[in-house]
């Protein structure tokens, strides 16, 4: 607590950066005012608040806080646009779409596979190996997860999901090991081997799926032995939070732990320091006696295991079935979250939550507004990432040695 207090004490409340943060908050407020439960019906309110946000952004931009200032300007503009859209649609429709507790729970559900994929990618890319194979690893985890669970169901009963997760992690490790050998020892372009893994995972999972379950699909009773939801009774009774956190899937709680563990490991342990050193300047790391190859192998292979567990959540924790190519870009959104979060665990999680939220909204929009708007919302994570790499809201720069094979001398 004292650390937190000390940090709060250090904040200068009129510093340009802080003003920029006010702007971002105001931008969000402009949108929020037009939504239930307040649901302001006048267009003036979001516009005025949004303009305040933009003003704060410009003020902070002109004082060389481009990152926060740009963010505030963007937030103000988005707040005005979405706020206006919201005030113009009927309250009944809004109430139907914006149910905060349901949106909150859905956001977490959608964000979890992204979090696993992105954290997997974080380990890999922090060690200097680009991983665009996250999509393939997620897909292999989704298939081998459900396959393992179905196989184990006869003798493990309702605990078959444990075997499922193990099978998923193992499959992810196998694919990651191929990527690792190709990228580290054979020094093949890492983008090429990543694309190859994506193709192979798509083909292999599709092939075995058709061969095994082609005619009728995966069994309908997977939900009985899927990854269980954790019902916490004393939380369930809490106002608002209870309905979000009360009965989350086990993997969602695990993703919180994974996040904390990753942050501790990467930024607070000597192993994490070695990992980052290998990713930033392998020659220097080698000079002080860190094995670059060993570090990279461990990082890439654990990356596969983590990403594949996200896939297992998708198939046996979330939808309880498997379809050919069912990840449908989830791995790429995970990669986007990693880039958006600048290769840091908590910002990456923030991006995953944002993208999860946009999926959750996209899911609920069709009920009130028809299919087409929900569809367009699915593009939002990708558009935001293009904006992020374009440097409007501060540039995303990855680990320095990312993508470069290392040759010992």
């Amino acid at each position, binding site marked *: 607590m004292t650390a937190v207090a000390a940090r709060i004490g250090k904040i200068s409340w009129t510093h340009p950066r802080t003003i920029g943060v006010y702007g971002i908050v105001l931008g969000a407020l402009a949108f929020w005012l037009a939504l239930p439960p307040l649901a302001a019906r006048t267009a003036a309110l979001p516009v005025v608040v949004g303009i305040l946000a933009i003003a704060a952004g410009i003020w902070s931009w002109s004082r060389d806080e481009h990152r926060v200032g740009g963010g505030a300007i963007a937030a103000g503009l988005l707040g005005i646009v979405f706020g206006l859209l919201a005030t113009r649609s009927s309250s009944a429709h809004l109430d139907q779409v914006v149910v905060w507790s349901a949106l909150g729970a859905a956001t977490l559900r959608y964000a979890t596979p992204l979090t696993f994929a992105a954290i997997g990618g974080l380990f890999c890319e922090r060690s200097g190996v*680009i991983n*665009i194979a996250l999509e393939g690893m997620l897909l292999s985890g989704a298939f081998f997860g459900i396959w393992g669970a179905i196989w184990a169901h006869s003798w493990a009963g309702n605990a078959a999901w444990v075997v499922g997760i193990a099978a998923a992690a193992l499959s992810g490790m196998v694919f990651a090991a*191929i990527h690792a050998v*190709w990228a580290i*020892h*054979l*020094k*093949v*372009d890492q*983008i*090429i*081997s990543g*694309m*190859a*893994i*994506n*193709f*192979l*995972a*798509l*083909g*292999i999972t*599709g*092939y075995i799926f*058709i*061969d095994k379950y*082609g005619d009728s699909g995966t069994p309908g009773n997977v939900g009985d032995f899927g990854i269980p939801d954790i019902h916490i009774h004393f939380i369930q009774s809490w106002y608002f939070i209870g309905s979000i956190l009360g009965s989350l899937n086990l993997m969602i709680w695990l993703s919180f732990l994974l996040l904390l563990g990753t942050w501790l490991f990467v930024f607070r342990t000597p192993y994490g320091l070695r990992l980052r050193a290998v990713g930033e300047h392998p*020659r220097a790391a080698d000079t002080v006696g860190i094995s670059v190859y060993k570090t990279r192998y461990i990082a890439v292979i654990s990356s596969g295991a983590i990403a594949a567990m996200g896939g297992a959540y998708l198939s046996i924790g979330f939808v309880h079935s498997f379809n*050919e190519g069912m990840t449908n*870009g989830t791995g*790429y*959104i995970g*990669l*986007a979250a990693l*880039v958006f979060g600048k290769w840091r665990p908590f910002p990456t999680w923030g991006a995953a939550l944002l993208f999860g939220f946009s999926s959750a909204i996209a899911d609920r929009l069709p009920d009130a507004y*028809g*299919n*087409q708007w929900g*569809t*367009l919302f*699915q*593009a939002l994570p*990708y*558009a935001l*990432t*293009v904006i992020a*790499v*374009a*440097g409007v809201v501060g*540039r995303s*720069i*990855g680990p*320095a040695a990312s993508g*470069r*094979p290392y*040759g010992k*001398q």
Partner: protein
Amino acid sequence: MTDELLAEEFEEQPPAETPQPSQNFPSKFNGLKGAIGPLITTVIAFLMGGLVVLFTGKNPIKVYEAIFKGTGLNWFFHVGNHSARIPFSTAHMWFPFDTASVAAQNLQQTLLLTTPIILTGLAVAFAFRCGMFNIGGQGQYFAGTIFAVWIGSSFGGMNPLVHVLFCLIAGTIAGAVYAGIAGILKATVGAHEVISTIMLNWIAIWVGEYLFGQQGPLQNSTQASIPISNDIVEGAKLPVFWGLKLLQGLSIGIFVALAMLIVYWIIVNRTTLGFEVRAVGFNPEAARYGGMSVARNYFLAMAISGAFAGLAGAIDITGWEYRIGQNDIAVNQIGFIGLAAALLGRNTAIGVGFASLLFGALINGTSGRQLDPSIFRPDLAGNLTTIIQGLVILFVGLNLTGVVAWVRKRRRA
């Protein structure tokens, strides 16, 4: 930007055995020697694919034979005394092959699929020559299809020649502009083109799903429940010169694609632009010292590369698809197959041409329309195609000499 450049400057040169991208993809097609690696790769991929078939209890030789029959490439083996109609006329002439056989129809399908793969392959190859990895072929292809469908299904009374050219040019420009976004980002702020093109792919996919979906702005005007576009008008269709239009005969789009192979070769090898693009791809710093604008070349290479992919989309629409549905957008993989074709063809015009034919034939041979289900399930075969593509990409990037050196070193140690 500056600290990145500094970092690059102070980074020691990698040791000689580290393969450079430029060595993996030689700038000149040095005769048969350059084809050995891709050929070995293809053989390995097919052998491993055969093993997969074997594990599922089927005879791989029979399966491959059935796939080969489906490709229509056996058409070339049946030489005889036939009469063929000269395209676009009523006159007939002697021809060594039967132009109306089943094999001929299969071959038309193979060539229809080869056409866009050549073009998306060139899209990847051209960016490669500039040292960039354009994974966005899929998105640029969709940009081309969207504009071709939109323009093709409007302007009903237009002169057919003008209309079809309008479709093709609009699709080409759409692809160029869409890839240009990634090019500008790379040139100005140094955004990694792989990340930006992956994201642009998915934006194009979802925008396409939105446009042609139910109640979408470009959904067809007659059946509100079907998420599909309007058909393009008769005047916007490319002429079919072999086979029947109703049975997806072969359009003259294949000649456009072949011409583009030549255009690609000329741009890369015989123009100042191509020289600069290759110079930047080989070593951006040296090119900069030589007075070339690296940023300008990044942008131009990306835009030209996108133009190829956009043209692929426009030719598919005007050549045989005539419409596009939400489902097509979800399952289409042409852009990624182009990636495999460019890698296997080592970014040379002739290599991309042959590799595209291989993948076009493979996809057609394993399609539900061509493959006999009693021999092998087409949906299994489709996945077999994906596996083979993955293996090709996996092994073609492998510098065989590098592997040999590594194995030798191990043995010594």
